[in-house]
């Protein structure tokens, strides 16, 4: 397991450090809220639901990486928290975390429609994602919280539609990310954190994650509306639907969140 972690970290370092030539850039920040449905059978047999807050920062840049042209180098930072309640409505739970992803999406194809005023672009490529978070149940005694830590290699695809409307060049994009393999932290079925940390008996807590035991996906739908005609600043409306699931060490977990966010995108022209 240590080898897998080392390999993933090494890969992240090497790939991030590899020469990336400059190109068009776009930075966006959006913030909003929605709802969450969280199940963690280490804490409770039942799903907790409630409102959630979500902050997302995204950067995109067209680069040449590993000798391949037209790569959309993307970073995504998600910070979210949810305020949850059990089905009976008498216990509160809090969930939250931060997820950072870097993706290298190859521009695969382009379709232009009608007088070249509208264009679809398809991108796909690998994504490296790290997640740190946790769930805290306010009633439980010796199992009050569950820590979450994951490092995964994902597959991501993005479909972007640029079109003209109201004399503005708008952009609608949909992106899907699916974790393929990685490593994650999980206590064993009935293991206490006292054993894992005070007694340092944590050798079984790093588990190999794959599509079979972590069938998850993240959907992002964003619409950029330039504030003025030909403006380099756009209003961004985003829907994020994150369906994260796992079954490690016979412990079941899911976190389904739907977030509607609003923010801005700033475009930087090629220098």
């Amino acid at each position, binding site marked *: 397991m240590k080898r897998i972690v080392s390999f993933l970290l090494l890969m992240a370092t090497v790939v991030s450090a590899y020469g990336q030539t400059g190109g068009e850039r776009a930075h966006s920040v959006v913030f909003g809220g929605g709802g969450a449905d969280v199940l963690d059978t280490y804490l*409770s047999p039942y799903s907790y639901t409630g409102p959630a807050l979500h902050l997302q920062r995204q950067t995109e840049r067209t680069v040449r990486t590993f000798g391949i042209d037209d790569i959309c180098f993307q970073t995504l930072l998600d910070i979210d928290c949810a305020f949850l309640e059990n*089905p009976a409505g008498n216990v509160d739970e809090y969930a939250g975390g931060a997820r950072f992803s870097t993706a290298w999406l190859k521009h695969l194809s382009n379709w232009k429609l009608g007088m070249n005023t509208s264009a679809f672009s398809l991108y796909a490529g690998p994504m490296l994602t790290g997640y740190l978070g946790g769930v805290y149940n306010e009633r439980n005694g*010796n199992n009050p919280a569950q820590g979450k830590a994951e490092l995964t290699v994902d597959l991501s695809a993005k479909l972007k539609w640029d079109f003209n409307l109201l004399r503005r060049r708008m952009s609608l994009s949909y992106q899907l990310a699916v974790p393929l393999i990685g490593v994650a932290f999980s206590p064993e079925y*009935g293991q206490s954190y006292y054993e894992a940390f005070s007694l340092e008996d944590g050798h079984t807590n790093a588990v190999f994650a794959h599509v079979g035991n972590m*069938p998850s996906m993240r959907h992002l739908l964003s619409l950029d509306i330039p504030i003025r005609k030909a403006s380099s600043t756009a209003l961004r409306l985003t829907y994020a639907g994150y369906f994260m699931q796992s079954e490690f060490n*016979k412990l079941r977990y899911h976190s389904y969140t739907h977030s509607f966010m609003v923010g801005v995108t700033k475009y930087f022209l090629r220098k």
Partner: protein
Amino acid sequence: MKAKLYILLSCTVLLLSSCVKEEITSSDTRRGNFEALWQLMDQRYCFFDYKKQTLGVDWDEVHGRYEAMINDKMTNMQLFEVLCNMVGELKDGHVNLTASYDLGRNWSYHEDYDKNLDEEVVEGYLGKGNDYMFASSLKYRILDDNIGYVRCESFSNGIGDGNLSVMFDNLKGCNGLILDMRGNGGGSLDTAEKLASRFTNEKTLVGYVYHKTGKGHNDFSDPVEVFVEPSKGVRWQKRVVVLTNRETFSAANDFVKSMKRFPNVTVMGDKTGGGSGLPFSQELPNGWGVRYSAVVFLDADKQQIEFGIEPDVYVSLNQDDVVKGIDTIIETARNYLVN
């Protein structure tokens, strides 16, 4: 290109169809809550085999017997009583059912025995005002015959390293030490271990611990050794008598287990109350909390201590002494240490 899109869409459909859902799906009905509790305990409680050997509890048989008592017309309180009685069959002080109006419990581990503790008499030994001192939650005093007396009522509150060092420094001139753990219902294992670390000069194997790894009654991890390492602060080097009764439970039971491994320690009083399982919490569809033993602690000989630890010297509280303000167990310990 179309092929790639089809693969991507197929993967998405596959992922959508593989939802990770709740395992226990009982509804919030009388029968649903009963089934949820039985199933939750069946999958997660760690002492079924031991309780079958010692108490003859057959969890499947329990299901059949109690299922017959469940009906849709019973009130919440009646359901609560039946469910409490069901889990009470395990005679485990760490098993509780919690509703907004009550705490379901089986405290037979101490209620069925003599208390062997009179708080007023103990207060007489500690004195009043500034007669005794505090070291975090510990109270201590030097008795007339130059024996140190430390009252440890709980491990629920932390004890500072500095407080312990000052206390042992203050007691260093004493000829012996009485550590009164009677009535200590437990608390933090780390706090218990911190106190135990003041009584050993070398790393000592004090027991083993293992946990459930699956839903089967015998799905357990391999036992892991538990050691107590000597504190870097002031350590007690003279003789110690640890006083116990049936209320010495959970983390306090674990503390006694560790202390018995040290050469200068003698345990006096009654058998401890046990409670060697580390409790976890879960819940029922109606929101009632469920606490149950999830992790097993064994002694250094890999023996169960769920039903308590025998003292080295059995001593009971004499009621004639109590009337005179004398604690028979403290006096026996003093005589032992003085002589």
